[in-house]
């Protein structure tokens, strides 16, 4: 079995009286594309925010690449090699696509030549080289999505966490994006953690899937196993009550 890149143990996060995530255990293995799914309110986003350091866990432990990252601030976790994207295709709207990517390289390289090379490489891969000098906010929706993922990928981190990257994309754009995610893993050895509502896409691309329901671990397995899992089907169709 492959080495574990991210180990999450007993992860709990409460908001006042509400427990969004409770005692969650899961592993992300190096080199896989892992899907994190669950019905609305299952705690996917909270898990994502805690793992990436944007929320502090109430309890639990997270070890990334041999380093305990529990409670570390987001920018430090990012420097260690765990980089995330945000929902709704967030980018730096007023800034050019070039500057969007350049900002991501500032804490990686001192040299301008290295930064420039990395920016161009990433832009080419995401088919953004024709719009490098456009303000990102002026681009069509599909390209804005690409910018938001490209920002994170510019860092060539060990783990790339994608938060609902396919929302609002048309079927052909989804195909392009999935192909990109595969290349990110195959060509660059970047492990991918994917939170996504598009089940077809998740089943297509993920090696393994972890399912959450009401803040708790429900199941894990290959897409084939998950699609046959009674508990998962019940959770999605709401028959469990």
């Amino acid at each position, binding site marked *: 079995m492959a080495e574990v890149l991210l180990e999450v143990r007993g992860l709990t996060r409460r908001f006042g009286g509400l427990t969004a995530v409770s005692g969650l255990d899961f592993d992300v293995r190096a080199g896989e594309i892992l899907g994190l799914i669950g019905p609305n309110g299952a705690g996917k986003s909270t898990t994502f925010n805690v793992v*990436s*350091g*944007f929320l502090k866990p109430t309890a639990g432990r997270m070890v990334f690449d041999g380093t305990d990252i529990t409670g570390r*601030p*987001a*920018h*430090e976790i*990012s*420097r260690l090699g765990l*980089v*995330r*994207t*945000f929902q709704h295709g*967030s*980018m*730096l*709207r*007023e*800034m050019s696509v070039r*500057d969007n990517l*350049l*900002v*991501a390289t*500032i*804490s*990686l390289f001192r040299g301008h030549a290295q930064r420039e090379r990395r920016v161009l490489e990433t832009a080419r891969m995401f088919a953004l080289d024709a719009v490098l000098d456009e303000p990102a906010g002026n681009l069509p929706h599909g390209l804005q999505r690409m910018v938001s993922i490209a*920002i*994170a990928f*510019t*860092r060539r981190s060990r783990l790339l966490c994608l938060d609902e990257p396919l929302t609002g994309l048309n079927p052909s754009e989804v195909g392009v994006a999935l192909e990109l995610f595969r290349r990110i893993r195959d060509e660059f050895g970047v492990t991918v953690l994917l939170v996504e509502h598009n089940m077809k896409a998740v089943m297509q691309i993920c090696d393994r899937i972890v399912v959450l329901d009401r803040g708790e671990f429900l199941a894990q397995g290959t897409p084939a196993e998950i699609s046959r899992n009674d508990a998962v089907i019940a959770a999605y169709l709401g028959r469990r009550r």
Partner: protein
Amino acid sequence: MRDGRVTALAAGAALVVASAFVRSDFVAMLFVWVAVNVLLTASFRFVTLIGELNFAIAGFVGLGAYAAGCATTMLDAPFVVSLAAGAAAAGLVSLAFGWVTLRSKGPYFLLISFAFTEVLRLVYTQTSAIGGNSGLVGIFPPAWLTGYYPATVLALVLAGLWVLHRLENSDFGRILVAIRNNDLIVQSVGLDVHRTKVLCLAVSSAFAGLGGALLAHANNVISPGDFGFLLAVFTLAYLKVGGEGHFAGSIVGATLLTLLAQYALGFGAFEHVFYGGAIVLVVLLMPEGIVGRWAAWRARRAGAAHARGPEA
């Protein structure tokens, strides 16, 4: 861009030299007021790069003025030392202020920064050691600067503008604008947003403090009322009129309004209506400010020339 900077530098140097030949005291003071207001507006604008309106700037101008005033009148400190004390006092206090308050943003930060300014003003009025309500008197520039004080102020302001411009166009400046756009993304690419915001405020406040120190030595008298929130409102008016999207906006806005305001002085109590009116008119008629409007016009002309073909 390069040409623009050379022109700006030449114009600045010419002003410095010209100010040394001014014989009228009133015109000499105008030079100082315009220069200081330009520096304050540029400092205020520096914090808008992270998307915040910093009304604490008036408080930091006051800290700079009082620190320099105390250094000069009570400790007989050399002029240079008292200027440095003004900048340092404002810069250091802003580090602590920013560390605590810059977790908030938008209207929350604006209100806190406004309160900070007003609290400082009240503290001055209640502190008899620094003159209480009537203020501190006898803050004079050194004798060896007689006749050259406006030139000194201009030169220092130009140096300050140069530093702020350099910073804005560096990695640091790019990160500031990125924070204004989306601070979460900036964190996600390994940059410490909070520390960067605090540093941004500290740089701005140090220059505001220097401005306060220069102002104190120009007016010879400072009192708590000079550093209330109205000073911040004026600075905002200068910036809005000049145009916040461009570095030159602070220079154009502060210069124009400071000169026009000499005329508005005759309005008595209506003087402040003048500033309010200026903000309202500009926001309604040209939200991008004078420099923004000019830049847009130039871009359009360049676009038209481009469309006409290479002979244009």
